[in-house]
């Protein structure tokens, strides 16, 4: 039986393999060829040329270094992102685990609130809007953290929505409402970010 890729990589890197495998590889042309190929791939990766740093990167870094307090830009974004993510995760998981579909969920939705279909189409419109917004070449780390937190929050909700069979109508509506809320915030953050870049 031929050696697996993991065993051949261990041999390539000078690590220990059992005697039977070592003996097989030494006498097998197929395994020998594969070992040569693995060495060649490593060599060609190492020989790849260094990439050129984009023009103006130092100037952009210098302007960041000149900002009065970089840390103060970082933390609010990270805190907002973490808060959003934790709140959404607690809400989604506690809501799904603690109630069964047959239980009568508290009627949060009122006539004034949009119904499920409207929430879904609102969510789709916001998705389409987000797709049209350009991603700036460089973004502030705090903003990136906020965006990542919002996206993770949406991912958690999507996970909840994927368990559709376990949700009551009102739970689905609550999740979609949360999703529309987060998407709205995300659109606003991305919009503000683009405005900042254009100024």
């Amino acid at each position: 039986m031929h050696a697996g890729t993991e065993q051949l990589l261990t041999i390539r890197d000078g690590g220990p393999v059992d005697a039977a495998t070592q003996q097989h590889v030494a006498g097998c042309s197929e395994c020998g060829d594969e070992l040569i190929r693995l060495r060649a791939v490593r060599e060609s990766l190492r020989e790849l040329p260094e990439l050129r740093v984009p023009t103006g990167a130092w100037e952009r870094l210098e302007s960041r270094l000149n900002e009065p307090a970089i840390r103060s830009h970082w933390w609010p974004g990270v805190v907002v992102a973490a808060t959003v993510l934790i709140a959404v995760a607690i809400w989604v998981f506690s809501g799904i685990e603690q109630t069964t579909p047959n239980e009568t969920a508290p009627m949060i939705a009122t006539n004034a609130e949009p119904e499920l279909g409207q929430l879904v189409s609102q969510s789709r419109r916001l998705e389409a809007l987000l797709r049209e917004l350009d991603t700036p070449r460089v973004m502030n780390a705090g903003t990136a953290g906020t965006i990542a937190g919002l996206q993770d929050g949406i991912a958690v909700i999507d996970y909840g929505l994927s368990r559709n069979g376990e949700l009551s109508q009102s739970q689905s509506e609550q999740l979609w409402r949360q999703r529309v809320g987060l998407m709205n915030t995300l659109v606003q953050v991305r919009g503000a970010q683009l405005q900042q870049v254009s100024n």
Partner: protein
Amino acid sequence: MAGFRTCQVGPEVVASARKGERSAQQAIYQEYSAAVFTLAARIVGRHEVAEEVLQDTFVEVLSKLGSFRGEAPLGAWIRRIAVNKSLMYLRSGWHRYSRPLDIIAEPRSTNADLVDESGVAQMLAQLSPTARAVVWLHDVEGYTHSEIGTMMGKSISFSKSQLARAHSRLRDLLLTQTGDMPCMQALNNF
């Protein structure tokens, strides 16, 4: 590739940079920026994100230079920060929602008998972000599976299996690229 090992900055430059001298800071940046940018671009797969990692790395390097004791080479310290920043990006949800990978443009090899370097770069860019990071960190930067496992918050066997899967995928991509060429001939050409 020159990489971090060939970069050199004198202790007097580091001392001046610690005091906040902008020209000394720029000298450190000039020496290491290409290595940091290359590492980031190979791991994250997108030029604009690689520049973001480059900037975040140097903001941290220059602001924490005072805590650098010089026990390890400056390049190793900068590289570790760059790796952490790149992996932080992969851990965030951001990359899951971003556009497909940019294929990083490489100059084509002029010698047809040599390994087609641009082809290798393109195949690397087609791996999953985690597999790409493991391949680069292990095969190029020389980190051990234990170090990669720690940096990624995973086990040694996770790193080993990711590397093996990545190389199997690279072999499949190579065979696809060479089309109908017999398997052994493709390997020999490689």
